[in-house]
């Protein structure tokens, strides 16, 4: 029994994943998976953002840049030789991780608002680059046709006639992003509870004191940007398959950057559950608003909610509850 309790988080992860799988098998309306994908993708993005932003205190405004690199790596791979989705995600994550390491090395000497501005510039520079890269569609964008009957290790994944594990691509992508989001949350929680997380917290509290207390601050921050960036890249690499049409405006949309920092702040930045709660809550509200009111209302909702939380609950929902107890 104690072993079970010890691994209750891991068991919870498995349970959620099983639940996601069961949902795809019982004939739920397909729109649920389409909207659900967007919400779960935000869980992943917010969790990734929080590794650097929440634990380390470095506000990254360049989320869209990392997502875009993931998306366009996937597109380039498809254009190059129809690489399948799993390698797309892995290579997308690697590229975004490398970008994180590179950008981190040059910008992590900047603090506070200067770091934020540098990361914001990153997204814009990358968008301009892709705008001028015809191989991946340039400014006009590109249509991606998901493979009709994808297979993985000889197993048929999607088949409309029921011969595959999933009946359609949306169900498959929903399951895949769920698995990736759970993996991200597991990574974030492992970091948070380990030496790295405690070091990052010390950096957030006082970087100079942390360095003088033996914390290799630059190395820790580089690890954080790399891990955070590669998770964002993975979340971006799956995007072309979901959208089927990608243009730079969508892939590098600033709305991602705003959501990525608003969700952890609303949920609570100091623990892994914060970004998850924030993303599930805000993501769901936004999806409902898109259907019932208008897609343009999203940013307004986000802004209002963020202002309310910054004023009324600066430590987010998690912080609010912890205080109550």
């Amino acid at each position, binding site marked *: 029994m104690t072993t079970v309790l010890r691994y209750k988080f891991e068991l919870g992860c498995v349970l959620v994943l099983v639940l996601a799988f069961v949902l795809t098998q019982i004939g739920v309306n397909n729109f649920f998976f389409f909207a659900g994908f967007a919400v779960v993708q935000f869980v992943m993005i917010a969790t990734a953002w929080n590794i650097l932003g929440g634990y380390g205190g470095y506000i990254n405004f360049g989320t869209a840049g990392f997502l875009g690199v993931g998306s366009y790596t996937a597109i380039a791979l498809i254009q190059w030789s129809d690489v399948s989705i799993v390698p797309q995600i892995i290579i997308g994550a690697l590229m975004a991780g490398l970008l994180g390491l590179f950008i981190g090395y040059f910008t992590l000497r900047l603090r506070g608002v200067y770091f934020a501005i540098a990361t914001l510039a990153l997204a814009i520079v990358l968008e301009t680059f892709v705008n001028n890269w015809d191989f991946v569609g340039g400014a006009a964008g590109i249509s991606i046709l998901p493979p009709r009957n994808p297979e993985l290790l000889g197993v048929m994944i999607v088949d409309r006639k029921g011969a595959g594990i999933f009946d359609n691509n949306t169900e498959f992508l929903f399951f895949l992003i769920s698995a990736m989001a759970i993996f991200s949350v597991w990574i974030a929680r492992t970091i948070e509870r380990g*030496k790295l997380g*405690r070091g990052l917290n*010390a950096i*957030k*509290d*006082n970087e100079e004191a*942390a*360095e003088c*207390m033996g*914390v290799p601050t630059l190395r820790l921050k580089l690890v954080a940007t790399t891990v955070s960036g590669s998770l964002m890249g993975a979340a971006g690499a799956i995007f072309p398959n979901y959208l089927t049409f990608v243009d730079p405006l969508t892939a590098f949309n600033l709305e991602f950057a705003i959501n990525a920092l608003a969700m952890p702040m609303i949920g609570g930045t100091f623990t892994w559950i914060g970004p998850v709660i924030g993303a599930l809550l805000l993501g769901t509200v936004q999806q409902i608003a898109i259907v019932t009111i208008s897609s343009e209302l999203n940013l307004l909702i986000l802004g209002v909610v963020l202002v309310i939380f910054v004023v009324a609950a600066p430590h987010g929902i998690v912080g609010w509850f912890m205080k109550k107890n």
Partner: protein
Amino acid sequence: MSDPLLKIESVTKKFGGFTALSNVSLKVHTGERFGLIGPNGSGKTTLINCISGTLQNDGGEIFFDGHDLNGMKPHQRTAAGIARTFQIPRPFHSMTVLDNLKIPIEYVSGIGIGQSEIAEQAMSILETMGMAEKANQETLGLTQIELRKLELARAIAAKPKLLISDEAMAGLTGNEVDEVLEILIGFNEQGMTIIMIEHIMRAVMHFSQRVICLDAGELIAEGKPDEIVKDKGVERAYLGV
């Protein structure tokens, strides 16, 4: 005499056109209690920053325990055995007092040991400092003396060979100063070399075996405490006469 633990040779530090340290040389021996005095703006903290690595000196060399410190990052210098406190306490404010001490233990003095042992070691230092009952308190509610003690305790948790205490007693009452002095002398008796920067003359003169005085970035006097207080140059630096 054996090689000094810390050897500073003609260290110079400039901020633009302003020379904060010019050609400062000094030696600190193992087990010594060393006082560093000088009027405000004389370069004491700059010298400490150059030793701990938060600033890189522009000229000269610093050797510590066989290491050439030039180019070494602050965390590498801490790993080599130098720990410092800050003039204005800089606690990790999102952590409890105990967790503050765990950071240098986990990253420097107790690499690879388990969490429960880290907590034990941190607790034992807090007990020595008389702060055990504050262990699980947030740092935000601490008083001035508690913050100063935490600053010292956290540096001591790195188990340094050389502890640099930068005005650990500023703002404390007479009794509190005695309390901190007693703690520092206790650690010195266990073999820790200590450099003390202090404005409270009574404390630094009582504590130090040897004192140097900086003025306008230059070393103007060096000697035993009673020699330093009689030194004409020191008098001039402080009183301007």
